[in-house]
């Protein structure tokens, strides 16, 4: 039986080139890899990872393997998987990889189980899906687990809730809390890639448009700053008084969503919360408004409700959904 489930085995060469390109922009990881190859600090570790299956993650997986760990990988989001990277990892790098771009929910959770089948000693999460699956359904893993790591704000919030309820059964390091993570990847990385995603999907001109950014955490600060730098009129929506004040003093207009949406050309949610844009907000929106979510889960915009109540004819374009 193949220890992988990927879309297309013929994409290895393409994936390899792109993984090598990403490596050129990851000098810190490269230096760790050199050290790991000599010192093998992860010898004997079985590491299950649930991360976005991208070129950067491929470099992390190879670094962990170079450190002596046995590694398995599944996707932490069904839409972000790069199928050529999955092919490269599974076939050339010989890292069991379970990820297919656009996989349905059933496949997504089967892949999580596939990764847990080898009874890992360390879990590496982006959104706490492995921790959550182990605690809910695969508790046999708890007897051998040493600990876990968590990449993102949303995952850390869930883990702290588990700790508070005394439900967390193994230690987890919140990578998101590291300053070299959230001060940089969230602000500059997510800031840039959010704008990039919107431009690729819509091809709009940012300059002169009204962009509402909902949430002024590290990601929201990044998104707002990039949009302002490109000439947008940026409005920030917040629920935290200190962050709202910070946004105001950083030079942004600050107001409630129900007001902000009236003039918005684009709304970007980066809150980590649910139902931030709901039906009643859309009643105030201009025709043709673009809704974008950059938060971890796809629950920030109530798309399901909007489809049912407002827009029966929905056309799906890859990574872009038009609502008529």
């Amino acid at each position, binding site marked *: 039986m193949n220890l992988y489930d990927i879309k297309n085995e013929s994409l290895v060469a393409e994936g390899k080139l792109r993984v090598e390109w990403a490596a050129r922009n990851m000098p810190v990881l490269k230096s760790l890899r050199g050290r790991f190859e000599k010192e093998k600090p992860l010898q004997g570790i079985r590491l299950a990872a649930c991360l976005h299956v991208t070129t950067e993650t491929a470099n992390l997986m190879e670094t962990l393997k170079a450190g002596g760990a046995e590694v398995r990988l599944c996707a932490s989001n069904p839409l972000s998987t790069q199928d050529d990277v999955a092919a490269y990892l599974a076939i050339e790098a010989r890292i069991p990889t379970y990820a297919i771009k656009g996989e349905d929910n059933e496949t997504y959770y089967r892949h999580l189980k596939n990764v847990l089948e080898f009874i890992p000693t360390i879990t590496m999460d982006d959104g706490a899906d492995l921790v959550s699956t182990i605690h809910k359904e695969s508790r046999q893993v708890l007897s051998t687990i040493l600990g876990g790591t968590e990449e993102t704000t949303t995952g850390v919030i869930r883990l702290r809730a588990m700790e508070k309820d005394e439900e967390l059964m193994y*230690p987890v*390091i919140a990578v998101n809390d590291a300053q070299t993570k959230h001060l940089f990847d969230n602000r500059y990385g997510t800031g840039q890639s959010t704008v990039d995603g919107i431009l690729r999907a819509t091809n709009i001109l940012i300059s002169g448009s009204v962009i509402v950014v909902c949430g002024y955490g590290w990601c929201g600060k990044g998104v707002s700053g990039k949009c302002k730098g490109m000439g947008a009129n940026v409005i920030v929506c917040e629920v935290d008084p200190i962050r709202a004040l910070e946004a105001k003093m950083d030079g942004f207009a600050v107001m409630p969503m129900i007001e902000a949406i009236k003039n918005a050309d684009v709304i970007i949610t980066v809150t980590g919360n649910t139902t931030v844009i709901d039906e009643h907000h859309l009643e105030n929106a201009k025709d043709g408004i673009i809704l974008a979510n950059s938060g971890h889960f796809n629950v920030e915009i109530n798309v399901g409700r909007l489809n049912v109540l407002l827009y029966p004819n929905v056309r799906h374009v890859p990574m872009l959904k038009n609502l008529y």
Partner: protein
Amino acid sequence: MDMSFANQALSAVYIAHHAGELDNKVYSVPKDIDETIARLKLEALGVTIDILSEQQKRYLSSWKEGT
């Protein structure tokens, strides 16, 4: 993602070597890992920075020094 994943890799090593000392809690990344990664990134960017003198270290850690 360079520094994020450097944190992931070094946090995994930290768990592998300190698992027995940890409770079932959420931990922050140890500060020395954070600083190591920042130093490696600065080095990669070709940036060098100043170092506190002994006099400056004493000044910062003492309440007896003059203002």
